[in-house]
């Protein structure tokens, strides 16, 4: 991971000093352990604050829509797929972008680590191949990195960036024979009542803070459907009905665009597995329309196109 950091700094310095870009979007070390924060560098003397390790789960593509300037951006596999989505949706032009591809080994799920530390607060994190060393006030613990991957990273099949101008590390082998949808199938096997209950319990803790929306690179509508008031499509209270409507429409809104980057789940302050909604859409789109999001700029998104023989068994 050190190597990535060095490479990113070097590239950022070069790009900024040669005036190739106006800003570099990357990460810097967060003020809290296990939480790196997005960092926009505009002058070459600040590049040494750029940083990279396994706590860079936030999707940086979120900072791209409608930017007028020339941008260099550090992109993991999922970030790069979201960049492709932005390109397809005309949110930014390819000429404006300089993509520093970061082949990804999966990001760490901070929440699971904190649960297992049982109240002890890590103050420093260090990574050496395959291990995460956490140091706190009076403890030190070394954990296996692979056991604490974010759920979406553990089942990721696109770890390497799909578009890039330069790589900051060697391409990593893609995971093969991954079963991406065991949880979706589990729900599919239930009867409707059980499913309703399952999702009711899933979203029960929701406080409607919209962190999932804000963290999502796809959510750039000038007025979000939850903020519309005339007509008001979604109730704004934390009544179960309103919460359900919100989660349902949010999932539907990202259908055919979601890359399963996990930013929503990572951002949720109460730990709701919001990907349970979006993954169903992802599975259907893959099965019905053989489309995987963000792999190519040549193919239109699935809901922006059609084929004469699309399945319609449920239509009378």
């Amino acid at each position: 991971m050190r190597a990535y950091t060095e490479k990113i700094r070097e590239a950022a310095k070069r790009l900024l000093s040669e005036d190739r870009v106006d800003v570099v979007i990357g990460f810097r070390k967060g003020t809290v352990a296990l939480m790196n924060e997005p960092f926009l560098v505009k002058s070459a003397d600040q590049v040494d604050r750029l940083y990279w390790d396994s706590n860079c789960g936030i999707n940086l593509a979120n900072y791209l829509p409608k930017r007028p300037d020339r941008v260099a951006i550090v992109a993991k596999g999922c970030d790069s797929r979201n960049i492709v989505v932005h390109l397809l949706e005309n949110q930014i032009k390819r000429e404006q972008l300089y993509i520093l591809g970061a082949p990804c080994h999966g990001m760490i799920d901070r929440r699971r680590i904190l649960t297992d530390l049982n109240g002890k607060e890590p103050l420093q994190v260090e990574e050496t191949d395959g291990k995460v060393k956490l140091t706190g006030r009076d403890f030190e613990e070394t954990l296996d990195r692979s056991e604490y991957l974010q759920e979406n990273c553990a089942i990721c099949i696109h770890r390497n960036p799909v578009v890039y101008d330069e790589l900051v590390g060697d391409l990593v082998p893609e995971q093969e024979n991954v079963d991406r949808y065991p949880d979706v199938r589990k729900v599919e096997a239930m009867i409707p009542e059980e499913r309703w209950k399952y999702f009711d319990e899933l979203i029960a803790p929701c406080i409607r803070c919209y962190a999932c929306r804000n963290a999502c690179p796809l959510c750039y509508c000038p007025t979000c459907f939850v903020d519309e008031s005339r007509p008001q499509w979604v109730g704004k209270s934390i009544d179960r009905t309103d919460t359900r409507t919100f989660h349902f429409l949010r999932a539907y809104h990202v259908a055919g665009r979601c890359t399963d980057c996990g930013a929503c789940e990572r951002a949720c302050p109460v730990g709701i597995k919001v990907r349970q909604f979006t993954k169903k859409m992802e599975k259907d789109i893959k099965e019905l329309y053989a489309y995987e999001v963000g792999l190519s700029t040549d193919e239109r998104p699935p809901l922006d196109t059609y084929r004469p023989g699309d399945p319609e068994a449920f239509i009378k």
Partner: protein
Amino acid sequence: MTDWEPKIVAFLCNWCSYGGADLAGVSRLQYPANIRVIRVPCSGRVNPKFILAAFRHGADGVWVSGCHPGDCHYIEGNLYARRKFTLLNNLMEHTGIEPGRLHFSWISSAEATKFAETAREVVAAVRKAGPAQHFIKKQAEVA
């Protein structure tokens, strides 16, 4: 509730299904009166928000109907709609809405009999599913 009658909101496309409904009326075909028709310019105009809003406002079932694929007045509106509805229908069922509540059909303006038949089918299915409770807000209980 023995005298419960299902309330069904039907989004009908102006060019085909609405015409079909009209023809069914003119032809004096009988079908249950549980349907409230909302005329839309095209089935492609129907946003999932509309469907959820209908449920939230007390509909027991929703029926969306448009032109047959290939016959769209706007050439391809219903073909986009077909994909939208497929995903919507799947997500609805996946999150626990009973399959009998949401219906889709293609009915041309000449198919009055199909309209009446489908209306009967939809009403029967919704009647079987019973009153919809899921999206109705519970009133706070005040002592």
